[in-house]
Structure formats: structure tokens, C-alpha cells
């Protein structure tokens, strides 16, 4: 598949490339949920003293991926709902080594390769891995058909790869080598914006002989760095097994876990958008109090705090007190407050549009001051075809919308709603302000649910048949 569609939105408040250290916190508020994980199995007791790297909780649905204590401290389980609170947090980063006994035990059980995977999982590096097709956490003991490593995050505003790679090239290449050691013959694809740059050559020279990495150049256009699109671009099929996909921070975490055997608890998180003074990147650990970040960076009173990017991120609810374990960036956006007078008659020098309906199309590209306003009324689809033009997945959003409107679920499935990567561009460009992304997510969930029901039904019937057959055999035997 060739790349098509895509669109870059220029938003004011792009984070600078510097990484700022945040002041040490006194307490950490670790949310028990993040984008993919819900940590339901608590492994610690109230009031227990833990050291950095200890497992606080695990997610039983996701291969027991752990929630690690970033620092030493005292656990409080019930102070805040859905959070584990660490009080009296130690100032210095400590790490607990995995006990030698345990390592030996695992080596006996799983072999040398198993130990690496165990380390990745229990030291918190595995949570950076995604299955390219489903976006879920892949099985750490499984074998992938390929590995995709992406250095890009184009969506405004997520932590960028170049910021993380700054001065850490050695760690990155070492991480790639570790990744290679987990595989047999499966290829590693390294996705970069420019594969003939000096930087790319540096990586090539460093890993020569240690890892066989194929480089893939993609244009810097949102959302081409999406793993599902990359997998399709590389002609990988879901039938061939999972495709492990990992971003820069994941490779660095692999290096940390396997070279130093240290827990990966510190992340670089971007903070950007309108309403931020000095948009930048900051070094924080999971559980870092949001309130402190707000105090330091946000000056806008009526601001929406988004966990993630502007197009796919989720609103950070007021009852979430800390940065979660999967946070890749915090974006601040001004809430719409004033209603514009005769808005549709304005020439629009300062607003950026996908279509050239504003005079700004005569201007060079610029960063716009967006608010959360929908900027128009909900209308029926006027078949402008903009959604299909921007769709990177090559499906027809307007068609699926019309099928959904008519409740034709089977047709929706045939129109391949499952290929949708939820990038949000169709909702963004729609002049009728139809929220296509949400509709598709709901449709996908509905289809998945129906399929699951059918599967369960089949299983039940098979079971029934088996039982009947057994009963028949038994009665035949008795008769004999």
C-alpha cells in the first residue's frame, strides 16, 4: 500500500527540544489505569515500604504487565480512589535488582532467551510494545513476524523521537541490538523521516554487524507513523502473526532493562499547546502530580488538559492526580468561550482550513490558535469527499457514515471500518461537523462484540454436540 491522505495541523505551542528536569515530588499519585492497561491486581499492602522498581500492581488481562514504583516510599492504597499513592518519596533514584535466586529459577524454566523477556516485562520495558494491527500489548513470549521501530511522533503534541534520541544514540543502537537478540530471522524495520541523513548513517554504522535493520523512509505527515499504516505499507498481513511495534522510548527502555537491568520508570513527556508558557519536554516519572505541572506551565484558567495529542488524546479528568504510565505528552487547549459575531463572513486571515475557503490560503503556513469550539453546526453530510481525501487508511468515511445512519452493520463491515486507525482527521475536516471518529470506534466495538457473540454461540453448540455424542456413545456401550 502506498501512503495517501494525511494532513498536518499546525497548532501554536510546539514544545521546544529541551528536556527540563522537574522538581522532585514529595508524593506520587499513580493512576491504576492508562490507555491500554487497568491495574487491578494490587501486590502491595497499605502502609508497606517499597523501594524503586518494586511491582505495585499488575494487569491480569495484559500478560501481567506491572505497575512499578518509580521511587522508594510508603504505599497508601485508599487515600485517593483509583490511585496508589506513594508518600515520603525518596529523592534519589534507586533500583532494586531482581534477586539472583529468582533469575536462576526463571533461567531453568524458560532458558536464556526467556530471561530477557522476563526482564523486559518485569522492569517495565514491555509496556512500550504494541501489536501493529490491534494496538494491544503483544504476548512477551510470542514470536513476531517483524518488528517496527518508529522514531516519529507527528501528532501535535507528543514527545518527539529526536528529543529522546538527543545524546542517547548509543543507548538506542544498543537497544536495537537487544531487540535483534530476541528474534531469529525476523526483520527489524526502522522508520525515519530521512534515511540518507547523517544521523541515519550514524545509526547504520553503529549497528553494522550486530543487528540487521532495514530502514524505511516516510514523509513527515500525520498520521503516517501509525503502526497499523506502517505494517500495511510494509505488506505485513495480520495472518502472519503479531508485529511488534515500538517507539524510540521503547528501544531506550529495552536498552536500560537489558544492559543495566534497571527499571524503566522515568519518561520524557512533552507539554505543549496554547495556554502553556514555555512549551517544552519534561522528565517525569509515572505518578508525578499533575497539579505541579499545571502550576509550572499552564497560565490559561479555562484550559482543557489533554493526555496525548490534539487529535487522539483523552481529556485528563480532574480526578486524575498523576501522570499515568503510558503518557506520551500533555496538550493544553483553550476552551471556547466567546461566540464569534458573523463568523462565516470573516475573511479568515488567521484561521487555517483544509479547503481554501479562507484568505489564509494565500498566506504561508502558520501555527494557529485553536480552541475547543466545534466551529459550526451539525448538518447532514453534503458529500464533499474531504474525509476520503484525508483518510490515511484508504477507506471511505462518508460511506461508512451513511451505512451507519441506515443501520447497515454488515455493509459497514464490508466497507472495512476495521482498517480505520482512529487518527481523527475525518472528524477534523468534516464541514458538517459529523463526529466520524467516534462513530467508527463505536461501530468497531459493536462488530467485535457481535463476532464474539457468534463465536461463543458456536463454541456452545460444539460443546453441546460433543456432549450429545458422548451421551449417545455411552448409551450405545450400555446397550452392548
Amino acid at each position, binding site marked *: *500500500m502506498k501512503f495517501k491522505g494525511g494532513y498536518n495541523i499546525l497548532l501554536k505551542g510546539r514544545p521546544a527540544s529541551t528536556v527540563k528536569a522537574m522538581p522532585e515530588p514529595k508524593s506520587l499519585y499513580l493512576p491504576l489505569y492508562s490507555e491500554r492497561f487497568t491495574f487491578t491486581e494490587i501486590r502491595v499492602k497499605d502502609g508497606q515500604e517499597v523501594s524503586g522498581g518494586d511491582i505495585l500492581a499488575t494487569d491480569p488481562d495484559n500478560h501481567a504487565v506491572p505497575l512499578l514504583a518509580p521511587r522508594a516510599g510508603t504505599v497508601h492504597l485508599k487515600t485517593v480512589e483509583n490511585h496508589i499513592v506513594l508518600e515520603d518519596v525518596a529523592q534519589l533514584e534507586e533500583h532494586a535488582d531482581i534477586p539472583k535466586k529468582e533469575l536462576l529459577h526463571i533461567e531453568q524454566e524458560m532458558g536464556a532467551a526467556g530471561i530477557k523477556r522476563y526482564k523486559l516485562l518485569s522492569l517495565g520495558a514491555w509496556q512500550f510494545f504494541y501489536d501493529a*494491527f490491534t494496538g494491544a500489548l503483544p504476548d512477551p513470549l510470542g514470536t513476531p513476524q517483524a518488528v517496527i521501530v518508529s522514531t516519529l511522533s507527528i501528532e501535535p503534541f507528543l514527545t518527539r523521537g529526536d528529543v529522546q534520541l538527543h545524546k542517547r544514540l548509543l543507548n538506542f543502537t544498543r537497544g536495537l541490538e537487544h531487540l535483534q537478540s530476541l528474534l531469529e530471522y525476523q526483520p527489524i524495520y526502522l522508520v525515519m523521516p530521512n534515511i540518507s541523513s547523517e544521523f541515519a548513517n550514524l545509526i547504520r554504522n553503529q549497528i553494522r554487524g550486530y543487528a540487521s535493520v532495514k530502514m524505511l523512509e516516510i514523509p513527515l505527515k500525520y498520521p503516517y507513523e501509525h503502526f497499523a499504516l506502517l505494517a*500495511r505499507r510494509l505488506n505485513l498481513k495480520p495472518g502472519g502473526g503479531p508485529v511488534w511495534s515500538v517507539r524510540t522510548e521503547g528501544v531506550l527502555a529495552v536498552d536500560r532493562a537489558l544492559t543495566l537491568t534497571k527499571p524503566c520508570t522515568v519518561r520524557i513527556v512533552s507539554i505543549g499547546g496554547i495556554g502553556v508558557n514555555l512549551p517544552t519536554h519534561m522528565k517525569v516519572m509515572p505518578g508525578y502530580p499533575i497539579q505541579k505541572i499545571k502550576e509550572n506551565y499552564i497560565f490559561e484558567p479555562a484550559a482543557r488538559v489533554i493526555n*496525548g495529542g*490534539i*487529535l*487522539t*488524546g*483523552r*481529556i485528563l479528568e480532574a480526578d486524575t492526580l498523576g501522570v499515568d504510565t503510558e503518557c506520551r505528552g500533555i*496538550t493544553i*487547549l483553550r*476552551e*471556547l468561550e466567546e*461566540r*464569534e*459575531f*458573523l*463568523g*462565516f*463572513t470573516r475573511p479568515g486571515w488567521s*484561521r*487555517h*482550513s*483544509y*479547503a*481554501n*475557503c*479562507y484568505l489564509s490560503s494565500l498566506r504561508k503556513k502558520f501555527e494557529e490558535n*485553536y480552541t*475547543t*469550539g*466545534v*466551529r*459550526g*453546526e451539525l*448538518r*447532514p453530510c*453534503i*458529500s*464533499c*469527499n474531504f474525509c*476520503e481525501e484525508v483518510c490515511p487508511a*484508504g477507506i*471511505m468515511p462518508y*460511506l461508512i457514515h451513511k451505512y451507519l445512519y441506515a443501520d447497515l452493520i454488515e455493509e459497514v463491515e464490508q*466497507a*472495512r471500518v476495521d*482498517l480505520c486507525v482512529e487518527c*481523527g*482527521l475525518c*472528524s*477534523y*475536516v*468534516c*464541514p*458538517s*461537523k459529523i463526529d466520524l*471518529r*467516534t462513530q467508527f470506534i463505536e461501530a468497531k466495538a459493536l462488530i467485535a462484540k457481535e463476532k464474539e457473540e457468534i463465536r461463543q454461540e458456536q463454541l456452545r453448540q460444539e460443546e453441546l454436540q460433543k456432549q450429545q455424542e458422548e451421551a449417545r456413545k455411552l448409551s450405545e456401550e450400555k446397550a452392548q
Partner: protein
Amino acid sequence: MKWLLKIIDATRPAFEEGGKLQIFHPVFEALEHVFFAPSTRTIGAPHIRDPLDVKRVMSMVIISAMPCVLAALYFFGLRFIAMIVVTYAAGLAVEATFSIVRKESINEGFFVTGILFPLILPPNLPLWMVALGVAFGVFIGKELFGGTGRNIFNPALVGRCFLSLAYPKTMAASWVEPSHELTGGLLTWVSPSLDAVSGATPLAMAKRAVDPEMGSIAHQLMGSVSGSAGETSAILIIFCGTFLLFTRVASWRTVVSMLGSFVILTAALIIGGAVDYPISGVFGPVIWHLFAGGLLFGAFYMATDPVTSPTTNAGKWFYGITIGSTTVLIRNFTGYVEGVTFAILLGNIVAPILDEIVVGIRIRRLRNEG
């Protein structure tokens, strides 16, 4: 403008549920949203939206049609203003009634119909017929199908088609000679009617072979020929239409394929000797035909209506070709003088079929994907 917002906020309760004027809520809402953008916020991802809305899209069409309106005033007199006013009044009455009955909000689509409809009418048409035509077009062509976004036919063309079938004589008698004075028709109510003998548009003259000159191409370019109010000035339509293509409100695919197929087919007919024109050569008659009648106006403003044209890009190409070639056939081989209206309506009929075919092919391709 705080005072206006205050007035709106103060009157809102009367139109909301339980208020005295509850049934007029769509009208109130429409008026409110003309003045003030809605205050709705995004509830989830994506948290920002493109500033383009349907109001803006529609106002782009109206802006681009403005030069044609001015040209109509210049060539055919101030009566044209009355035609616009009547169109809006009659059409809005139908639109608002339906919105109130359906309890939906009034859509902006009508404002485009309202400006385009008088532009495709003979300049001296009785005003009651203008009202009847637009009411018929909006009622049958749009509202019965479910309103904006769901109509199959271009409402303006349905209205015009109805008028030319129901009142052919009045329609034919309503052409006027464009003003040739420097001040144009700006000082007159309406230009003098054409007499029946030499009467009517260049296309009609060509059909009856009355005038071997058939009106010169220079006149067609400027617009000082007889014809529907807004369709006479080729140069203005091309200029404004290009603006519409630039804003991407109209699709260039439709326009290019429609005009391209028209030119190619006409040239082929002339070279093949199937049709005979008093003008010698191939290029001359083709250009003359291209500029004559409502072809350009239809191509830029009518055929490109996103709702009634196919959605898929491939469909748009075939749609344009259908319209372009049908126009040639109607103009040259039937008793009708002008074929654009019928050709576009025919195109509207085939548009869903074309879409169906293209979508079918694409879905078959998608099946093998991933």
C-alpha cells in the same frame, strides 16, 4: 455586539421547549446562528475542528455568484432584484415550513438555491412564476427527499425544468434583448422584450437558422447576448467558477470532464459532418457552442453541487462526461434549443448509480486489504 447577544439570550426561552413560540424554534435558531457562531465544544478527540462549516461553504458559492448577479442587473435591468427577492421569500417559506414540521434546523443549502435559481431564468419571467418555480423546486426537488444532503436532484434545476415544461410559451416570450448602453440596464427596470420573429437566444437562432451570424463570440464573452439572466457572460462565469474551484467547494473533475467531453464530442460531430454550422472551421463553432446558453454556468455552478453529484472522484469524471455528451446530443439532435438543464438532471439520476459502481469496485479491492 453584546447588546444583540443579550436580546437573543433574552428571547430564547420563548422558543425553547415549553415556550409560547416553541414551533418556531428552527427559525429562531437559524437567525441566531447567522449572527453568532454556535457555542458547542468538542467532547472528545479530535479536540479541535477545521474552521470550515456548511455556512462558509454555501457563502462561498453565493460570493462567487455575485459578479453574475451584477452582470444580470447590468444587462437586463433592475427587475432582477425583484426576482431574487421573490425567490428567497417563496423558497424560504417552503424551507421554513418543512423545518418547523420536521423539527429540524433550517439548512444553509437553500440560500445557494435561492441565488442560483433566478440566474437561470429568463429575465422577464412573471414574478408569480418565479415564486411557483422555486417553491416547486424546493418542495419536490429537495424537501420530499429529506432535505439538504439527501436530495437526488438539484432543486434549482427541478424548478427551472418544471417551468419550461409547464409554461413553454411564457418562458420563450420572456427573453429580453440585453442593454447595449454604457450605463447598461442599471437605470431601467427591464430591458425591452425581444420580438417574436428575430427573438430568443443565440441557440434558438441557430436552431432556426435565422441569423447566420448566430451572435458573435465577443458578445458571448462579454455577455451582451440574450439568454437566462446570469448565464450570458462567459468571461465572468469562467472567472468566478475558477474561484469556486480554487476554494475546492466545486470539484474541478466535474467541470473538466463535462466541458472536455462537450468540446470533444462537438468537434467530432463537426469533423464527421454530422452537424452543419454557418460558421466555418471546427474551432469557431466549438467555442461558440461552449459559450452559448447555460453550458458554462451549468458546469461551474449546477453540476458541481456536491450533494447531487457523485461523491467518488472516479464517479465525478463519468458524471461530467454524461452531462457533457448529453448536452451535445440534446442541442444538436432534438427539438429542444437548450439541453443543459435536462442533461444535468439526467446526470443527477445516474450519479447514485455511478457511485454505486465505483464504491462496489473499491469495496472489492478493500476486501483483499490486510
